[in-house]
């Protein structure tokens, strides 16, 4: 990668949820960069804070959630403290969002075509006729059959995977520079998935579009991401080049996660699993949040919280890689 400045910088991000039972810390000291044309994959335990990180970046944290500390910069400019209207413009034009939940993005009362056309006429210097033509083109690009015939359908008339493809088309059609994609291909079959991934990669390569790609699908990560961040209990447990993180994870949680991937080439009696569950936000243990489930836990892990440190090929938040710590 050249030394182009990062397109997106997230610095020490902390997100809190004030509740009657006290303040919940949903994201704690999360930092990462994404360069133009780069795809950062984000994986991790369900509930770890992946969607929350995406929501914070696009300025759509659900109240009472709020950014309590840290900064988010797009092209060197802070965007975490912008007014709603200003952020709304950025969101359509510079950041495209693909949400995990297609129903929040699609308006059930409008046809799919109308939603695409309105997005384009708002953010691009084109009229409705041109926008409709492009809308059909985008629907074709994301693999909707008979796009010209189905453009006037309502969202509920589409299958789950087809709705998701409409959401993808909506995020891409205004040609943003950063795409925050939360499980964009989860509802898609492998073939359409291959097509959508190819489309996203082309955008990254040819237009320099950067992407934060949240997904549970390690196959998609392996194919698409340049780097991967593994999240656990509101923090980044490990971050590094995709091949290293997927094939030679250093953090014990990443290792357990990768081991749980069901094999394709054989049937096993029982899948490898990490026993237990991630702690609830209100009961994050002292020290390393993974310590109650970690097979390699030692005393220090229960007392002190590890920050990301150099673990050779990747950075891992784990005391095993602390050279000062003589492991007993």
């Amino acid at each position, binding site marked *: 990668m050249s030394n182009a400045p990062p397109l997106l910088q997230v610095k020490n991000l902390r997100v809190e949820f004030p509740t009657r039972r006290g303040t919940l810390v949903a994201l704690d000291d999360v930092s990462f960069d994404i360069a133009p044309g780069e795809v950062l994959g984000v994986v991790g335990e369900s509930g770890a804070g992946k969607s929350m990180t995406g929501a914070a970046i696009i300025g759509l944290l659900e109240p009472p959630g709020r950014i309590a500390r840290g900064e988010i910069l797009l092209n060197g400019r802070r965007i975490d403290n912008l007014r709603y209207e200003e952020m709304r413009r950025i969101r359509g034009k510079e950041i495209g969002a693909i949400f995990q939940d297609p129903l929040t993005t699609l308006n059930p009362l409008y046809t799919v075509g109308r939603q695409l056309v309105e997005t384009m006429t708002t953010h691009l210097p084109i009229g409705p006729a041109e926008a409709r033509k492009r809308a059909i083109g985008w629907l074709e690009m994301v693999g909707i059959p008979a796009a010209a015939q189905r453009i006037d359908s309502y969202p509920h008339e589409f299958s789950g995977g087809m709705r998701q493809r409409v959401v993808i088309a909506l995020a891409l059609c205004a040609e943003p520079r950063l795409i925050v994609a939360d499980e964009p291909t*989860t*509802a898609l079959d*492998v073939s359409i*998935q291959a*097509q959508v991934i190819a489309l996203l990669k082309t955008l990254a390569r040819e237009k320099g579009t950067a992407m934060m790609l949240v997904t*549970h699908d390690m196959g998609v990560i392996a*194919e698409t991401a340049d780097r991967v961040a593994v999240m656990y209990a509101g923090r980044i447990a490990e971050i590094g080049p995709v091949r290293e993180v997927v094939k030679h994870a250093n953090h014990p949680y990443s290792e357990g996660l990768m081991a749980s*991937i*069901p094999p*394709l080439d054989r049937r096993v009696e029982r899948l490898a699993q990490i026993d237990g569950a991630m702690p609830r936000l209100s009961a994050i243990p002292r020290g390393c949040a993974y310590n109650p489930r970690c097979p390699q836990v030692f005393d220090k892990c229960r007392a002190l919280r590890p920050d990301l440190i150099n673990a050779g090929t990747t950075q891992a938040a784990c005391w095993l890689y602390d050279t000062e710590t003589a492991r007993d």
Partner: protein
Amino acid sequence: MTDATPMFEARDLTRHFDVSRPLLQRMVAREGRRILRAVDGVSFAIPRGTTLSLVGESGCGKSTVARLSVGLYGPTAGSVIFDGRDLAQARAMADQRRRMQMIFQDPYASLNPRWRVADIIAEPIRAFGLVQTRGEQELRVAELLTQVGLSPLDGQKFPHEFSGGQRQRISIARALSSNPEFLVCDEPTSALDVSVQAQILNLMKELQQRLGLTYLFISHNLAVVRQVSDRIGVMYLGRLAELSPAESLFRRPRHPYTRALMEAIPDLDMTGRERIPVGGEVPSPISPPSGCAFHPRCPLANDRCKMERPDLKPAGDAMVACHAVEEGRDDAMPLPAIARDAA
């Protein structure tokens, strides 16, 4: 197996949707009605205590079969037989309804946002009168929450306080709460990370072994499907292309579409194996191609394929709807890399 009646049977199951534009617009444009054949003559049976999975491209009709299977849609033609009874008949009896449950593809749409999680999970328990006291109900809810990897304390929260994957666990707990014998699972784990997915799939297998549950399982993740299925049905445009014992399907996929589908699986090992999307256009279910619906994309298609629709016929231990397979000229298409590696 002592009881030979299958738990579940779909007989020539068909569901069409009318997706015509409003009458006035149709008159102006001089166009007729548009009928979408979401499911078109699908037959299969699921023996008690086994799992049948449906795979296939998005929009091929999997969720529609799922909804037909539990009576959320009525069939346009054909029928669904639940434990030897017509489904409509079975649905009229509360004690039969309790025996079937569905886990939906979309964990957002299927949970009532205004209810606390404990009430959502307890609803079937109450509706079917499965416990006598409030205390018993609380115990059961706590047990279910723990079973799916949540905490009993989570019962007091509302759905919006959970992540996507956590919500899917709630819907699984709810589906299990009425002690069903037949579970229709539409993409039950695709919103979950792989470690929770492994826990849920292990749990589902364990429940099956312990309680003899029968599953209709839908997923587009073929690795997951391989782990859970006894048999697999591959759907294409509303019809079954192939119905096969699970291991045979992976070792020797026969239908050209099945083979193409397997070539499109993402390459996790980063071996550089090329991922080949199924070529050609995904056809429209409103005006499906003549003859075999796969013919515009099939490397083995010939004139017969364009005219005559193939029916499911036995081929080895599978059932395959393909003229080339029937005529024994399917060797012209290579086995996918995954199957080659296994051989």
